[in-house]
């Protein structure tokens, strides 16, 4: 049931596997949230994880960079298992960018300081170099004029774009997006999705948990449909959205009003 598609309809830009999930199991107490997830994410690929709330998408993302520990199975990042050792895990995390639903910008720092914080504290960059990198990234997400603003003075969409810049400042090999637009006003969703589309076009490897079906359809190379802690269907967006083979996928999409 969780077999990946044998011949991908979308040619992969690079065959190197960035993330390899095998039989991943996660429990919270009695609740089994992930029931054996297997998935590969290749370099340059955009993989969207969709499915009903509570189906395990966000948990898988949080296991990816070790914010949650596994109860079974393995996750490999660039060919190496996620280490148990704190220090090695930190080094691996530093190469994965993460964007949270609730932004989680540091409220006591300006936009520029937020973006420079990782390079300064984790990479040990000099303030001038870190600030230069942060300025360039704020410009990239269209917020050069907000460098001196504190998060509280920014709209949700602007905060999330700063958060994306903050993650990019570590020059990650993969970006993990955990429902990046779910906490946003409808009018600011587009600006965040626009930045994500640009990243995808530049070849960034991305795993995106999202309820934005039109984004998944337009940007994803592959879509994985979650239900009850399993991937019930996986394939290129054309297949998932136009010709889903699994009944639950059709149900889920029609609940969202997706006409196909």
């Amino acid at each position: 049931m969780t077999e990946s598609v044998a011949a991908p309809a979308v040619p992969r830009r690079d065959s190197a596997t960035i993330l390899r999930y095998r039989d991943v199991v996660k429990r919270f107490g009695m609740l089994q949230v992930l029931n054996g997830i297997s998935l590969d994410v290749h370099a340059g690929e955009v993989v969207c994880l969709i499915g009903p709330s509570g189906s395990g998408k966000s948990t898988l993302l949080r296991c990816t960079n070790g914010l949650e520990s596994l109860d079974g199975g393995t996750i490999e990042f660039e060919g190496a298992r996620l280490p148990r050792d704190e220090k090695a895990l930190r080094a691996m995390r530093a190469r994965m960018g993460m964007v949270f639903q609730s932004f989680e910008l540091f409220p006591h720092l300006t936009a520029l300081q937020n973006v420079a914080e990782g390079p300064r504290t984790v990479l040990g960059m000099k303030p001038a170099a870190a600030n230069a990198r942060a300025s360039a990234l704020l410009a990239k997400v269209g917020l050069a004029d907000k460098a001196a603003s504190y998060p509280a003075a920014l709209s949700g969409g602007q905060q999330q774009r700063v958060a994306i810049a903050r993650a990019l400042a570590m020059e990650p090999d993969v970006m993990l997006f955990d429902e990046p637009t779910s906490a946003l006003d409808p009018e600011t969703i587009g600006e965040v999705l626009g930045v994500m589309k640009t990243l995808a076009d530049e070849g960034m490897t991305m795993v995106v948990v999202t309820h934005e079906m039109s984004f998944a359809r337009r940007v994803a190379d592959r879509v994985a449909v979650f239900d009850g802690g399993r991937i019930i269907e996986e394939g290129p967006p054309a297949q998932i959205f136009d010709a889903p083979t699994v009944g639950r996928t059709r149900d889920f999409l029609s609940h969202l009003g997706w006409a196909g």
Partner: protein
Amino acid sequence: MTLDWSVVWQHREALVAATGTTFLLTIATMVIAVPCGVGVAVLRLYGIAPVRSLATGYVELFRNLPLILVVYWAFYVVPILTGVGLSPLATGLAALALNVTAYNAETFRAGINSIRKGQVEAAMALGMSRAQALRRVVLPQALRRITPVLASTWVSLFKDTSLVSVIAVTELAYVAMQVRAQTFRVLEMLTAMALIYWLLGYPQAKLVDWIQRRYAVNE
């Protein structure tokens, strides 16, 4: 009854010097009790089990003992137990610092706990260690949040320094009482003492309010 306010003026030099000691005690206590309070709070939150219990025990002991008892105890009992006798000033400072550190530890613990988990996760997702996340993300926010509490601790402490007068530390309360005892000008000296404490304490409270508005973090 005739009042003779000149007694206050006559002893102005002693009173000014004593006021200086009161300020010195307040500042020195806070200089010790803020970092130590952070330390105890961090040990209580993140230390290994025995350290955590020790820190909790310390906080609960000193938060629930009358300060005046701690002052007496430090002055009379500690030298007997240890054979080391400190000056009244150092003894008073130690007693105040022990007491205020316990209060500050509770304040910091509440402040650290009030920072939501997502902030630490965001820091760790960047590759920070727990210690870095605490230092760079949690503590700066917690400190801003608890500024009003630290401020009221400061203002309380400024007045509570008067308790060390019982071991003859020549701070404001002790000196005022000495003058009263020598001159029998009870009403004048007590009123002067009240005025000095109030006139010095009130602007400090206002200053602290201002600092808090100025550096408050909007979320």
